[in-house]
């Protein structure tokens, strides 16, 4: 088949993703249309070939890393197909390979290639042009991700604290099942009856699915299938790590951009004070769009990088008595209101034992860019260190957690991490979405011994967090690296149910083999 190319050295890059896991494959394709995806899938289905779906390979859990079979790379499907409006909002229909950064640029400049758009789209676009600015709220740190990838893992970002994860902003998807049949789902149209869901394919087949029985944790979550009683069918496929179908098209909802966006970095001398501050602020001040955390080691990484004269040299100096930082982003409609909120944040800070001098307030675009840069600099610096250490020991990778817990466990989860790191004498840097009790604790192994200790500690944490009713993946997805923890979180019975669900849609178990399920379960025939 012409669309399918045998794998060769020129495609080496497609064997890895940002998790730095490297796999292997037999063939690869870069479809440009839904029809091409369908014909590729049909061919592979006949030949019982396993398929790994790939976007921009920015994922952190190896979901896009193939272990044999075919790589279906959708990055060439990067067109914006149309626009729709209703009373409140604007919606864009896009192909799954659209890159988030490009999308954001187009939305803010309101410039789209509309040559192939139909009249309804053009009409909606015209009113979009004269409407106040809009934005797409999900803001994962890695903004070169594809939208298809973001939907596959239900990505989120700092602003998900206020606006929710990607799921909340997806209003329609089209997907191709493993055998090539097309399913088109619009939010609000197809619902489950308790835990039984019937979906209809484009050619009229009804497929009835028994949904797993487990209850999802009451936290930010991107672990396993989204299921609940009477759920909307579309939600099953969002965050399914491409194990149920291949997304061929999606519709995203835009949100009016708040006229005033300010960022405040609040520095504290101790973690205890920072946690207290978070508890005082969240849900108490309206308009808090993001609450992010950086611990002392994360700030030290920045200081070191800055001194070594890298790109981070443009950042302001972080005074040495600033031991940790909570970044708050405020969204509001008027200047008076946002200023009032800022002073409220200040009051809470003083209550938590902080000092109003120890704040950086960004009120214009330049300053906000600076604080965003600071946020992105932390993971970037950690990666640089790991890449350095990899040179002496190639086995070393960053061990980054992505777990969330319910609100009442925020202090407890900090204790869990701190005591574990201390007892095992491990180097680490921590940042993340503290408003959602969702921290990325990054173990930075110095040698392979540390790496082993770290992986063990990681499992212990997953266990404890499952006990707290938390999620083992809050935003990165499960992919291949965290499938073991999914079982820890939900138990083997639930995994059986998930596997059964997958086989109802993908009877040969070809799609994204290895994602969600440890190989001996769903992946293997």
């Amino acid at each position, binding site marked *: 088949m012409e669309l399918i190319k045998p794998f060769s050295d020129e495609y080496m890059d497609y064997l890895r993703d940002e998790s730095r896991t490297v796999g292997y494959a037999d063939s690869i394709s870069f479809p440009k249309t839904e029809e091409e995806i369908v014909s590729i899938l049909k061919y592979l289905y006949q030949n019982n070939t396993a398929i790994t779906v790939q976007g921009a390979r920015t994922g952190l859990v190896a979901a896009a890393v193939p272990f044999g079979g075919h790589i279906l790379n959708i990055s060439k499907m990067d067109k914006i197909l149309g626009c729709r409006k209703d009373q409140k909002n604007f919606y864009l229909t896009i192909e799954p390979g659209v890159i988030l950064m490009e999308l954001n640029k187009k939305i803010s400049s309101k410039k789209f290639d509309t040559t192939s758009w139909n009249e309804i789209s053009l009409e909606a676009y015209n009113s979009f042009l004269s409407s106040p600015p809009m934005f797409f709220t999900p803001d994962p740190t890695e903004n070169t991700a594809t939208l298809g990838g973001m939907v596959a893992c239900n990505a989120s970002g700092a602003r998900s604290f206020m606006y929710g994860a990607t799921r909340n902003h997806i209003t329609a998807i089209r997907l191709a099942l493993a055998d090539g049949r097309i399913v088109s789902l619009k939010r609000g149209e197809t619902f489950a009856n308790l835990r039984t869901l019937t979906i209809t394919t484009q050619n009229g087949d009804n497929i009835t699915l028994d949904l797993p029985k487990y209850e999802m944790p009451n936290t930010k979550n991107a672990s396993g299938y989204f299921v609940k009683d009477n759920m909307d069918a579309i939600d099953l496929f969002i965050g399914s790590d491409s194990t149920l179908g291949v997304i061929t098209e999606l519709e995203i909802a835009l949100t009016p951009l708040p006229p005033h966006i300010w960022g405040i970095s609040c520095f504290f001398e101790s973690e205890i004070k920072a946690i207290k501050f978070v508890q005082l602020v969240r849900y108490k001040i309206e308009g808090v769009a993001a609450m992010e955390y950086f611990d002392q080691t994360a700030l030290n990484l920045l200081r070191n990088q800055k001194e070594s004269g890298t790109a981070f040299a443009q*950042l*302001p100096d972080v005074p040495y008595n600033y031991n940790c930082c909570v970044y708050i982003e405020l969204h509001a409609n008027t200047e008076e209101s946002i*200023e009032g909120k800022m002073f409220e944040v*200040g009051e809470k800070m003083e209550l938590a034992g902080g000092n109003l001098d120890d704040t*950086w*307030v960004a*009120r214009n*675009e330049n300053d906000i860019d600076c604080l965003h840069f600071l946020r992105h600099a932390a993971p970037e610096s950690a990666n640089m260190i790991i890449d350095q250490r990899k040179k002496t020991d190639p086995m070393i990778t960053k061990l980054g957690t992505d777990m969330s817990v319910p609100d009442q466990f925020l202090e407890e989860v900090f204790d869990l991490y701190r005591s574990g790191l201390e007892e095992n004498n491990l180097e680490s840097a921590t940042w993340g979405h503290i408003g959602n009790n969702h921290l990325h604790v990054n173990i930075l192994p110095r040698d392979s011994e540390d790496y082993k200790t770290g992986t063990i500690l990681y499992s212990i944490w997953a266990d404890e967090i499952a006990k707290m009713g938390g999620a083992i993946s809050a935003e990165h997805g499960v992919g291949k690296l965290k499938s073991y923890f999914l079982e820890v979180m939900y138990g083997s019975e639930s995994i059986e149910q998930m596997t059964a669900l997958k086989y109802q849609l993908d009877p040969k178990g070809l799609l994204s083999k290895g994602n969600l399920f440890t190989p001996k379960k769903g992946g293997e025939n």
Partner: protein
Amino acid sequence: MKIIVCMKQVPSSNDVHLDPVTNTIIRDGNKSIINPFDSSALEQAVEIKERLGGEVTVLSMGIPDTQRLLRDALSRGCDKAVLLSDSAFAGSDTLATAYTLGLGVKKIGKFDLILCGKMAVDGDTAQIGPELAENLNIPHVTDVDEVIFVNDKEIICSKLIDGGSQILNVPLPALITVVKDIKIPRLPSIKGIRFSQTASLEILTAQDISADITKTGLNGSPTQVVKTFTPVQENTSVEFKGNAKKIAKQIASVLGEVL
């Protein structure tokens, strides 16, 4: 140590394009910001003050809206602000601006050091600093990239020159213009913002500074803009298509012809 920092309000973006239909100039975005070079000058001034004590006054000539940015400067460590605002100042070229700022400086009174950004990002003239210093008859140094030493008598600084740098010693009072990299501007703190809301911001008219209005604004400007236009681009280019390998070969063959 009494320090004055000159600041200009500039458009946040220099994006200007030609409307294809009317063939006229359209500006994209019309927010205004503190000229980034001046932000660096402000930071340098505040750091000197924090070390030696004293007072930083930020001085600007501009439209009334400039008050907003002066408040911003106050939130970032300046102590006082003075805005020279009068329709008699509109249309000033660099000489008229330097004249007006000079009167502003005299109104502020005794000073030890004046800092200016090397240039403004909208005009790119880099002339205000030297012209102001000449008007005040004080020594000055342009393109300063480091303040090495300063006390109430003298300043030792490094300046960038073509092909290198120079270390200079200048008695105070003096004026320096600074390059953007001299300091990374700080962000204001909540405390700073609170201070800026009530800090002293004086607005002075032509009369307040006893300006001779034949020397200010458009009338007082020896240079006149007689025409503005957007540069025209013309083009006929060959496009290379294909995969990266093929394109690279085509590029290599062009390079082969030329080099």
